[in-house]
């Protein structure tokens, strides 16, 4: 049987960028999964609140300083992140390297601030259900910061290795930047929930 060739694909690029790549869609799908997880955590928080005679249960509302500083910092971190994203799209290796080093440092700061947030809650996870849910929400978000930080560090190393100058790597940097935006975006409703809902 002779093949009836009707299309020639030879002219296509050997790698898709952005929405033409599978990894972009894969990242999106994982964000959907984790976003559902975050949303459920908030729903559980509100559910427990709806049952409680007073909220927070046996605790003062959380102190605002650490959490608010962290929130402002996260929002600001989006700026360098967008720049790295742009440089990666321009495939500018030198600037991407600098940007990744900056983003690695940027990833460490929220972890330090987070260490002050847990005590600012005025409650431990094993005291009551309020304590349980706030610790789990903070913990859940912390693991996301941590994962993205490790990913950024590995990417930084990669970009200083012989594998660096490759559109595929720049695509990885784009996906990583998208993920950081996600980490920031999911924090905002969590912040509102943890710090302001108890003050309503």
């Amino acid at each position, binding site marked *: 049987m002779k093949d*009836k060739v009707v299309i020639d694909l*030879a002219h296509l690029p050997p*790698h898709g960028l952005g929405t*033409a790549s599978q990894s972009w869609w894969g990242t999106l799908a994982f964000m959907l999964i984790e976003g559902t997880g975050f949303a459920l955590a908030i729903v559980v928080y509100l559910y427990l609140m709806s049952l409680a005679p007073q909220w927070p249960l046996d605790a003062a509302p959380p102190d605002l300083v650490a959490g608010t500083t962290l929130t402002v910092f996260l929002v600001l971190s989006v700026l360098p992140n967008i720049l790295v994203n742009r440089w990666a799209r321009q495939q500018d290796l030198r600037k991407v390297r600098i940007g990744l080093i900056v983003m690695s440092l940027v990833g460490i700061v929220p972890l330090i601030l987070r260490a002050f947030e847990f005590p600012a809650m005025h409650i431990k996870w094993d005291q009551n259900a309020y304590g*349980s849910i706030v610790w789990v929400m903070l913990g859940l978000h912390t693991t996301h910061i941590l994962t993205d930080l*490790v990913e950024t560090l590995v990417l930084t190393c990669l970009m200083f290795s012989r594998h660096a100058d490759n559109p*595929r790597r720049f695509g990885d940097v784009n996906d990583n930047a998208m993920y950081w935006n996600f980490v920031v975006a999911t924090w905002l409703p969590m912040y509102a929930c943890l710090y302001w809902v108890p003050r309503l």
Partner: protein
Amino acid sequence: MTQDGDGLRDSSMEGSELHRRLTAIWSTPSGLWGALSTVDHKIIGRRYVTTAFVFLALGGVLSLLIRLQLAQPEARFIGPDRYNQIFTMHGTNMMFLFAVPVMQAMAIYLVPLMVGTRNIAFPRLNAFSYWVYLAGGLLLWIAFAVDTGPDVGWFAYVPLAGPEYGAGKRADIWAQMITFTEVSALAVAVEIVVTVFKQRAPGMSLDRIPLFVWSMLVTSFLVIMAMPAIMVASSSLILDRLVGTHFFNPAEGGDVLLWQHLFWFFGHPEVYIIFLPAVGMVSTIVATFTRRPVFGYLGMVMALIATGVLAFGLWVHHMFVAGLPRLGESFFTASSMAIAVPAGLQIFCWLATMWAGRPVFKTPFLFVIGFMVIFVIGGLTGVMVASVPFDTQVHDTYFVVAHFHYVLVGGAVFPLLGAVYYWFPKFTGRMMSETLGRWIFGLIFTGFNLTFFPMHILGLQGMPRRIYTYQPEMPWSGLNLFISLSAVILALGFLLFFVDAIRSARSGSLAPANPWGARTLEWATSSPPPPYNFARLPVVDRLDPLSDDIEAVPVASGLRVDRRELLTSSVVHASPEAREASPGDSIWPLWAALASTLMLIWSIFSPWAVVWGSIPLAITLIGWFWPKGVPEDEA
């Protein structure tokens, strides 16, 4: 041969040369190492299907033990503690280790072939998901073997499963098995979504996607939206049990109904995660054996999507007796009845197709007919229990056991068995026996109805589920004996099925590329397909790429033959976007799965496992993703 800027192309290569080069680049090396590091979706898919059927057999053995115990009143064969473990194991095993994985497994094998690509998206994640699934299954069964099997029912309600009543590690095993199977199910869902979105053959626009692929796409979205709920639930349960959180402890502001909400927000869609793939299988089989496309393609797709959306509005109907606001109950009753609409629509579309076509009654088609009969009965009792007063009466009785087996076995296992008969030649290159197939269908259909129909009556007579024995004064013993004897017929049918499958895989008659005269793309390549699936990627210009007036499927050329390469195409129109590399074999997914297993099992015993266990996991993940300088990494 053309040597463009990058790599060697297939453009002017002849058949045998092309085959030789593609085989060299795509095939899995023989031997243990090759088997452990393969990322071929066909090999992993076959492995997944086989493993899931082993779990079906194991779960079947448990149900026979149940029937043996209940055959007569006050039997001494199984004690109450073992009995609790057995029905919990049966339900958990069937839902989490058999039904969901087996549907995804069929998709892992079939979806890439049906959309005309060379491997699934993220093939290494696919390998990882299989190992994690296997580890979760082993965890559950090894725990059962050493008398630590979960004993809290397949939905592990608190407070029974909580720290106060669920002593020992049994409930933790259940909860962590959930983590294993959900991680693997979520991974597969992502792979399927991306494969369907980005790897369809050129020209396979949205309105030309085969119905089975549509059903798997909707199912994958259900997995993505529903499974996080059960992971949140099972993780909070473990936290309550391990580090003293109070999510489900009313004394400290927690709530036991929270568990039920979280569980059923997942648990009801779960039913559709099992059922929608089966619907896709039925549509495929009906189209082939009536020799015409399924009537109302658009309506079928809309029904799939509508079912998927409605599936999230139903969870509370599992909690009618828990005492909820009246308005809430009415809403959930209405939505539970509304879901019968898309289901009914699909049944009418199939009936119309059969009516208009000339059905050929081969074994796969027989199972489809069995499905329709049984599923309609299950649907009717479903509408019955959707009404609160009736549900209050039969809640936790054998009426419910009968209902959900009609839905699950009728709605999923029958189509699945039909699908196995239908696709077996593609999977193995050999046909299953038509004669035996008819016997098997007859035994399973008769055995099933004789076993489960009387359970409706037992339920109405008040026999509760999950009891390890009953007194002779109760009017239940006659029917119970009858049911247990009927279960033997059912078991014989399944036994014969396994015999036929194993025998045919070894020595069945050889299958041609397209034994049924079917019209979807998986039949456009040999049976079984070569490691690269298609020597040249098919090009699609209609809903039925293999319809009768076609001599040969048109194809595309221009891909490289010196690295694993496939095509990515646009989401809506499937117009070509890029030649994309597909990752080669790797042992790292196995290491990563082992590291995850270590961390998850350890964390049943100590919260520090999450800290220390994440280090090996991170190392294996870095090993997995670090570029190795292979041609697949070029861009």
